[in-house]
C-alpha cells in the first residue's frame, strides 16, 4: 500500500496557490482559522507563493482593501493579492483599483457575481472589464452550476462569461471551481476548449475522480491552475488530489505552479 507523505512529496514542486482567502470569513466559525496558522500550514505543505483575497473585501470596500494591503506588506515574501471589485459600488471600486494598479503585490482581480448579486454582463461591470483587459490583469471569477438549491448561483453560471470573452478577447479570465457541481464541471471543458484566454481552477470541493484528467486530455494542462479556497477547504485535500491524478510530471508541474507563474507574471 503506497500513500504520499505530502510533506516530503511537495519538496520536488513549485506550488502556487492561486485561490486563497485570508481573514474572518464572516459568519463561518473555524476554531483554528487565523492568518499565521493558514499561511504556516501552506508553507509546511510546500506552497511557495499564494495569491489571496481578504474575506472582508467581499463585504466592505475600504476596510477590505486596507486589510489586503496590510497583509500583503506583512507577508510580502509569500503573498500576492487580488483586488476584489464590487459592482454595487462600481465607480468607487474602479477608482480604488486604478489607484493601486502600480502596486506590484496586487496581481489580479477577484469578482463574485453570486455574492454581489450582479450578472457579469450587467453594465455595472462594463468599465471594469475594459480596464482588466487594457491592463492585462487576470480576473478570477466565482463560477457555479445554477441548478443547485442556492439560487444566487445563477449569477455565476459559467456560460454567462461567454459573451464577456467574446467582447473582450484579450481578457485573461479564470473560472474558479470549474462550474462547481454535477455535469457543469464537464460542460465547462467546452468553454475552455473554445476560448484560449480562459483558465480554470478546481478550488473548493471539486474532487471528482477523472475530471482533471479529462480536462488535460481535451485542453492540455497549460490553463489549469492550482487553487485551494483555503480556509474553506484544507490544502491537504487538494495536494492529495493532484498527486493522485493519472498525469505525467510535466502536467502536474504545470498545474501546481508553472501556469500561475506565467499567467500572473510572478517572476519566480
Amino acid at each position, binding site marked *: *500500500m*503506497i500513500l504520499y507523505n505530502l510533506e516530503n512529496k511537495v519538496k520536488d514542486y513549485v506550488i502556487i496557490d492561486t485561490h486563497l482567502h485570508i481573514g474572518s470569513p464572516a459568519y*463561518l466559525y473555524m476554531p483554528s482559522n487565523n492568518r499565521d496558522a493558514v499561511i504556516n500550514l501552506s508553507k509546511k505543505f510546500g506552497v511557495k507563493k499564494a495569491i489571496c483575497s481578504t474575506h472582508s473585501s467581499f463585504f466592505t470596500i475600504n476596510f477590505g482593501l486596507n486589510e489586503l494591503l496590510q497583509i500583503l506588506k506583512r507577508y510580502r515574501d509569500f503573498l500576492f493579492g487580488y483586488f476584489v471589485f464590487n459592482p454595487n459600488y462600481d465607480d468607487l471600486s474602479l477608482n480604488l483599483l486604478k489607484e493601486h494598479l502600480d502596486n506590484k503585490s496586487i496581481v489580479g482581480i477577484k469578482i463574485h457575481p453570486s455574492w454581489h448579486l450582479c450578472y457579469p454582463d450587467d453594465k455595472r461591470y462594463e468599465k471594469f472589464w475594459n480596464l482588466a483587459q487594457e491592463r492585462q490583469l487576470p480576473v478570477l471569477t466565482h463560477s457555479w452550476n445554477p441548478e443547485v438549491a442556492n439560487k444566487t448561483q445563477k449569477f455565476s453560471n459559467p456560460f454567462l462569461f461567454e459573451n464577456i470573452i467574446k467582447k473582450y478577447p484579450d481578457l485573461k479570465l479564470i473560472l474558479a471551481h470549474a462550474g462547481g457541481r*454535477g*455535469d457543469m464541471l464537464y460542460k465547462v471543458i467546452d468553454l475552455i476548449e473554445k476560448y484560449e484566454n480562459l483558465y480554470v481552477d478546481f478550488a473548493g470541493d471539486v474532487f*471528482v475522480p477523472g475530471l482533471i484528467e479529462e480536462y488535460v486530455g481535451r485542453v492540455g494542462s497549460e490553463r489549469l491552475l492550482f487553487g485551494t479556497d483555503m480556509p474553506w*477547504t*484544507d490544502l*491537504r485535500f487538494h495536494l492529495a488530489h493532484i498527486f493522485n491524478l493519472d498525469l505525467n510530471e510535466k502536467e502536474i508541474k504545470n498545474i501546481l505552479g508553472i501556469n500561475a507563474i506565467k499567467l500572473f507574471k510572478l517572476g519566480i
Partner: protein
Amino acid sequence: MTTKTSINFFDLNFWFGENYLSQKYSLSEKKTLEILSKRKKQKNITFTLISNFLSLFYDAEIGNKLTAKLINQTEFMQAGASGILFMEQNYFFNPGEFGKWLKRSYEKGFKLLKISPKTHKYPFELSLFSYFYEIMDSCNFPLMISIDEIDITGNKNIEWDKIAKIANLYDNMPVIIDGGQSKELMYNCYLLSLLNNTSNVYFETHNLLGYNQIEDLADFKGADRLVFGSCYPFFDDSLAVSRIVNSGLDEKGKNKIALLNLKKIIDNIII
C-alpha cells in the same frame, strides 16, 4: 517520494449502481468489484459499506435486494464489502415486521440503516418514527442520515435539534451524520454543540473539508466521534485517505477515525 502507512480504513460512504442523473457517477457491478479490490490493495481501504443509488433514487426495497445480492457474492466479501440498508416505506404500513426485517438484513450483511426522509418523503421525527428508533436502540443498530436529507426546506435549515433529541432519547443507537453535498464547515457551531450535548452522534469525514476541521473536532471531543467516509464516486477516495494520514492527529487518533470507531459501532450490534 512515497511512504507506507499501517493505517487501515473502513469506508462507510461508497455509492454504486446506476445514477440516473449522470453516467459519470454510475458504477456497474463489475466496476464496483474492480474498484473495491483495487483500493483494498492500494489504499488500505479494507472494509466498505456500500450504498446503492437505486435505493435512494428509485425504490429502497429494490435497491436493498440488489445490494444484498452483491454483498453475498464471495468476491465482494473478499473485497471487504458489506451493505447499507435503506429504510423501506412498507414498514410504516407493517411496523410490527420491522424488527424481523432488520435482523434478516443484518444476517444478509447489512450493518447500518440509512434513512432518507426528504427524498422518500417520510418522517424521521421522534413522534412519528420512535417505534423504529426503539427497535434499533434495543439492538445498538446504527442509523445514518445525510445533512441533505434533514435540510427539509432545501435552504440549509438543518434539523439539528431533532437529531440531538433522537440521539439523547435512544443513546444506544449510534447516529452517524454525513455531509452529503454540503460543506459541513458552514455548520461548525452546530457540530460542536451536537458533540457536546450527545454521546452517540458521529460525523463522517469526507465533507469535513475546512481548514484543520478534522483536527479541530478531534481536539474538541477526541477522535472517538469521527468516522471515515470517502463519498466515492463523487469524491476521490485517495484524498480522503491521505487527509487522515497527513492529519495533525496522533497515530491512535488516526486509527480510530480510519477504522476502529466504526468497527466498534458494528461489533456492538446485538441482534
